[in-house]
Each structure stands twice: as C-alpha cells, then as structure tokens.
C-alpha cells in the first residue's frame, strides 16, 4: 500500500478573515497559529510543494489581497485529481486518440492525473525553492501546454470554489470578491440595487442549507 503522504502548512498561511482598512488595503486576520498537517490524496509531498508554488505564481498574494496558497488551492487540486475527474471516469476514452483542431477540445489519452504528473516533472524538482522570477520563466515556457491551461483553470476554481472542495479556505476568495455565496434567493433585493453593490458576509453552501453535503470527489471513487 502506498505510504500516506502529508504536507505541513503553517496555519496562518491558510484561510483567515479579510479586513479592509480605511485606505482600502486588505489585511488577513488569523485566529490560528502553528502548523496544520494536511493529508494528501493524490500528490506526493514533493509534488504538492511544486503545485503550491506554481499556483501562487498564477494567483499571487499581493496588495489587493490573498493568493492561491492562502486559499488552499493545492488541496482543491489534490482532491479533484484523486476523485472521478482525475481518473477520467466520465470522459469518453475509446481510441483511436487523434489530436485535432481546438474545436474538438482535449483529445489526448492521458488522464488529468497523468497530465499533472508529467507537467510537475517538467517544472523541475527544484521548482518549489526557485526564485520567483525563475519560476515565472519556467511557467512562461509551458504557458501554451495543456497542463498549464489546466493548472491555471484549476487555480481559479480552487480560489473561488465552495470550501467543501478544499479550496477557498474560510471563504477567503469570496470575501475578497464580495460574493455572498449560493444564497437561496434575492427576491427582496432584486431590482433595488441599481449600480450599487449589494454585499453581505459570504456563506458556504453548507452554512446556507444548514446541513453538510458531500462533493462529488468524496462521494464517488476515482
């Protein structure tokens, strides 16, 4: 049996409450300190570190607010790859596999898991510890690859997904955007906020429904 892999993250690098000062600069307030040990479902620890670093270059923390590491994007991707999506369970996988025009979408034989394994290897074992400029250079070199396009897309997904999927920790992405979460209705507000922002404290689907629900990756084996 495969050895269970973990990644250790500092608790104050994950999630948190976004506070805006009067000047409009956001600050992340953390209740937690110390380390959190996150079990990995698909990545090895070394792979996870490369993904954390790459996602942070794609969606960096900056003066406007949090980035991919803070949102737990790698955890999101790890779970997606471990689930039915990662194994291409619902993709049409009958051959022959023939590359075609972009209109046909991805026609390759490799599953998302295989695409990631190969892509991470290409970024290099030292990617996680390389200088930011060097990391950007390597990402730039593979910018047109299917792996990079997936990585970029999954980074956005992990930033703004419902937290049940492992990303958007403490709704940090939704806090940053001012998105209220999947509220069951806006009948009172509809037509009344004309060019004016309606912003409330965001809530996750579980908080709104009042009971936990299982995401696909937890419910169906990959």
């Amino acid at each position, binding site marked *: 049996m495969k050895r269970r892999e973990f990644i250790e993250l500092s608790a104050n690098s994950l999630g948190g409450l976004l506070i805006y000062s009067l000047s409009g600069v956001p600050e992340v307030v953390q209740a937690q300190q110390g380390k959190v040990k996150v079990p990995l479902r698909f990545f090895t620890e070394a792979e996870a570190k490369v993904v954390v670093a790459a996602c942070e*270059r*794609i*969606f*960096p923390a*900056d003066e*406007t*607010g949090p980035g991919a590491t803070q949102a737990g994007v790698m955890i999101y991707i790890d779970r997606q790859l471990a689930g039915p*999506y990662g194994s291409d*369970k*619902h*993709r*049409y*996988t*009958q051959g*022959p596999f*023939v590359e*075609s*025009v972009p*209109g*046909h*979408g*991805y*026609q390759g034989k490799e599953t998302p898991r295989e695409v990631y394994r190969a892509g991470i290897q290409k970024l290099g074992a030292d990617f996680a510890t390389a200088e930011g400029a060097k990391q*950007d250079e390597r*990402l730039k070199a593979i910018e047109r690859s299917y792996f990079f396009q997936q990585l*970029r897309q999954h*980074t*956005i*997904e992990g*930033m*703004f*997904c*419902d937290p*049940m*999927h492992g990303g958007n920790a403490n709704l940090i*992405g*939704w806090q940053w*955007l*001012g*998105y209220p979460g*999947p*509220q*069951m*209705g*806006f*009948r009172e*507000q*509809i*037509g009344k*906020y*004309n*060019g*004016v*922002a*309606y912003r409330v404290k965001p809530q996750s*689907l579980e908080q709104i*429904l009042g009971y936990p*629900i299982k*995401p*696909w990756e937890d419910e169906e084996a990959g």
Partner: protein
Amino acid sequence: MQTLAPVDVVVVGSGWTGMIMAKEIASRTPLSVVMLEQGGPFRGLAAYGKEMDEVDTFIRKRQAQSPSVGLATTRASSRDRANPVRQWGAFPWVGYGAGGSSDHWGATSPRFMPEAFEIATHLKRLHGADKLPSNNLIQDYGITWKDIEPYYTRAEEMMGTSGKAGNLNGKKIEGGNVFEGPRSKEFPNPPHPQLYAPQLFSKAAKELGYHPFPMPSSTLSQNYTSPDGVTRVGCQYCGHCSLFGCMVGAKASPNFTLLPIALSKKNFTLRTHAHVRRVEHKGGKAVGVTYVDDSGTQYLQPAGAVVLAAWVFNNARLLMLSKIGQQYDPASGKGTLGKNPTYAVHSGLDFFLDKPLNIFMGSGGMATAIGDFGGDLGAEGAAEGAFRGGLVFCYTQGSPPVISAFGTIPDGEVKQNWGSQWKKASLKWNDRFGTFLSTQNHFPYRHNYLDLDPTYTDKWGDPLLRVTMDWTDAERKQSAFVTRKQVAIAKAMGALAINAKPVPAATGSPLMVDNHSHGGAIMGASPQTSVVNPYLQHWQMSNLWVVGGSALPQGEEHLTLTVAALAYRSADAFIDRYLKRPGPLA
C-alpha cells in the same frame, strides 16, 4: 432478451416533448403509456438546492449525461476525420434523467417569427432564390402561424411564461415585442423586473430608435397555477439558474408541470435507466423498442405506437440504427434522414461598466431584448448578404456567478492571463460586466449532415452519430451585421470597453453539439424532403412519431417553446385524429 408485456404507446425520452405527449395521451385516453428514460428519476427540489455548487454542477457537469458512454463525433467537412466529443464543452450539455435537459435550461421562451414556418417561400419571394446563400436547403415547415399559435398559448400557460405582449390579436403594444406575430392571449404572468444594465440597454436602444421589451421567460415572476392545476411559487432570483435545477420549482420543468399529472394516472409508467437502442419494426409498422438497463439486461418492449423524443440528434441516430428511412447523401442530395442539422448563429459581446452589477442575482431568462433584428434584416442586411437575424438581448446575471465569471476583462488589457497584473485587472472588472447575445437563424446546407460514425461506438457497441457541420461565409456576414448593431448599442449605453464575439472567421472547426442543435429528422410538406409530416408522424411509418428539435428544418433561436408547441399539436393529432383512424395523417 426479455420480452415485456405489450403496451399501447412507448415514449422514448422524458424531456419536454416526450412528457407533453405522454401526459396528454395518458390523461385523455385509456391507452397504456410507458415512458423510457435512460437516466434516473426526478431527484426532487431539495436535490437542486444541494446542487447549487459551481464546481460539481457547472464545471464537472455531474448531472449531465456522462460522455464516457459515447455522445457523438464531429467534423467540419466530409473531407475531415471526425473526432469524438470526449468531454462536454463550456456550452449547454445534454440532460440525463427525468426531464432531460429541461431541468437545467435557462427558460428563455420567445416564440419564432410567423414567417419562420414558411421561410423558404418567404425569403425566395423577398430576395429571389439566386440571392440567398448557395447550397442552402431552407424549407417550409408545412404549417403556418395560424396552425401553431394556439399551441404556443397552451405551452406558455403550462409553463407559466412571464412576459409582455407586443402584438395582441394584431394590435401593437409598446413595451412588448411589437415585431412578434399576433398572439391570441397576453402572457400568463407579468415580466420580471429589469436589472440595472438591461435598464441602460433599454434606454440606449430607445434612443437609437429600437423597441426594447422584457425577454419572455418560463421562470415564474409570481406564484402561478397552470390550467392543469399545478401551483408553483415565483422566482427567488438566486442566480443559479441556467445549467442548474430550480430548487423552488419556479423555472418550468416537465418534472413539476407534467410528470405529477402523468404519474397520477394508472395507465402511465415512467421506467428509468432504460437506454433505448432500436425501434423494432415489421412490414412498415413499428412494433416496439429494444432497450438495455444499467446491468446490461436487454428488453423488448412491444408497443402499438412509438414516440421518439430523445435528445435532438439521438432521434436521427435511433432511426439510422433501426434502419428506418433513407440516409441523406450530400453528394447526390438524395435521402432525408440526417439532412438539415443546424445550430444557431451567434453574435455576442461582453460590455464593461464602472458600476457594480450584482451579477450573482437573477434568473436565466431575465433579459431585456429588442426585436428589431429578430426576423428579416431588411435591405441593409441583404446588401451585405445577411438575411435573417435573431433577438438581441442584454443580461448581467452570471450563471454561475463566481469561478466562471472571474477573469472577464477587456481584450488586450493585460499581456498575460496569469500573475499579479491579470489578478488586479480581474478584480477591477469583477461584477462590472454584462453580456449581449443574439442567437439567430441558421440556414441548413447541402454539405452539413448527420450519419453513423465508421470508427467510434457507444458503451453498447452501437456506432456513434457523426455530425458534419461548419460555418460558412453567410453566417459570418450575418453575425458581423448583428454584432455591429450590438456594438453601437453598447457604446450608447456608455460601455467603457466591449469584447465582441461574432462567429469566428476561421473555417475547419466543427460546430458545437449540444441541446441548442436542431434537425436531422425534419418535418415538411413532402416525404421527398422531410422525415416526418407536419404532425411529426413518420412519413413511411404511421405509428411512429418523432417529436422535438429534430423536426426543425432550420436553426432558430431558443427553440424550447416552439418544440413544446409542436408536441402539443402532435398530441392533439394523435389523440383526436390518429386514434380514430390509424394511418397517415398527411
């Protein structure tokens, strides 16, 4: 193969059209009706609440038909090799389970223009056949506005469509679509409120001399009880509409409006997880269907009449697999089965404003439209080779609103679509953009067609359907014409930037295959040019009825209301005429 007890009518597919046929037959006659659905049962309203998750529902498409079973292959021309659809694209996917695609539609519900049903006659009279795009196969439906209008009304009343009449019995009414065909009744429900950007659109359109109106939507604007006695509540504007199920039942679905009535009848049975592979026939009559369940067990369901109401292109595929009718051949132009597949010509743009728009509120069909380009494009269009258009409409609700909306920024604003600059631009424009769309008439052509793929098969070993379709210059001209008009309106609205998205200039890319497709088993006035007669009864097999979008001889915009109206007309013909005297009705 297990042979089941014979039934009077078997209906294949539980989407809008199959459910209309089944409910009408089961509630108005004593005939036994079995409906076969390849997916599962209706999941219930609470399930739709749990599915308000962008990742699972919208991005991974958990409720869609799994592409793993085999959907179709596509190619741009008969010179190309076809590749399979290996995963759903970003566009509407085909539904799976009770209700079919209707459980995740956007509920946009305009009627077609009256001349759409006689388009070939109309355009040839207007322009002369030689002026129209070469190799087009446009043809009349074999019915007129007068034939279909009462059924439009019936479909709207069943769904509870919200809107404002613009032409009531010939009297034009400002505030509705003054270009629409005369309707016999006002909409069953008033229109939805107009959101902020659509209000700006409305004002700009008026200044330019156009005629804005609220887009008809079959999501209820208020609580409503249908003539069938089904009560549903008004829309909550949750912003998870198109491509989601409605957790309050405000968005019309046959699961709410028709299925409960059918299920209350002893002579109706819904059988789920039943994947139909063939229509069985003997001596020119359908004798039933064969299907397979999830465990692989095969069944023969004998039936007195068969109604095909599968996903649009699967109707054609089932006829091909069952060897019913003559396959269309693009070289000789002979044959009717697989002829006239179409999509809809798109013109669209994203516009950017300097104010927050709360794009997470609203419902799918909530838009403000103009009908000024909804039919003929007039002398100005014809001079450019652009003949027919579609409604132009403006909306802001993102559906879904977060992940998939993020990163919508003016073209060229940043050099790289990742990193800090891109992140800042995405934040700056977050919740500050809206969309114009126009889905327009799409001509059928001699070289676009459907047949069976020689290479790829489905899970059960049956050949996949092969779709051969590409845009031509005629669509590019039409799309460019409408896009230009859209850009002018967006500018008049004060848009800070505009990303226009006309039909792409490049050739050689296959068209999208989804639930906005049309044709393949088209209706018409003659068996020489169509598969089904104007009642959607098969020309060669009178106890076989083929309903749904497969019947439309050319592409039009949002087709649901029209195919629902056509299904009501078929149901009446079946019950009131065919049952009294079984045989061809035309």
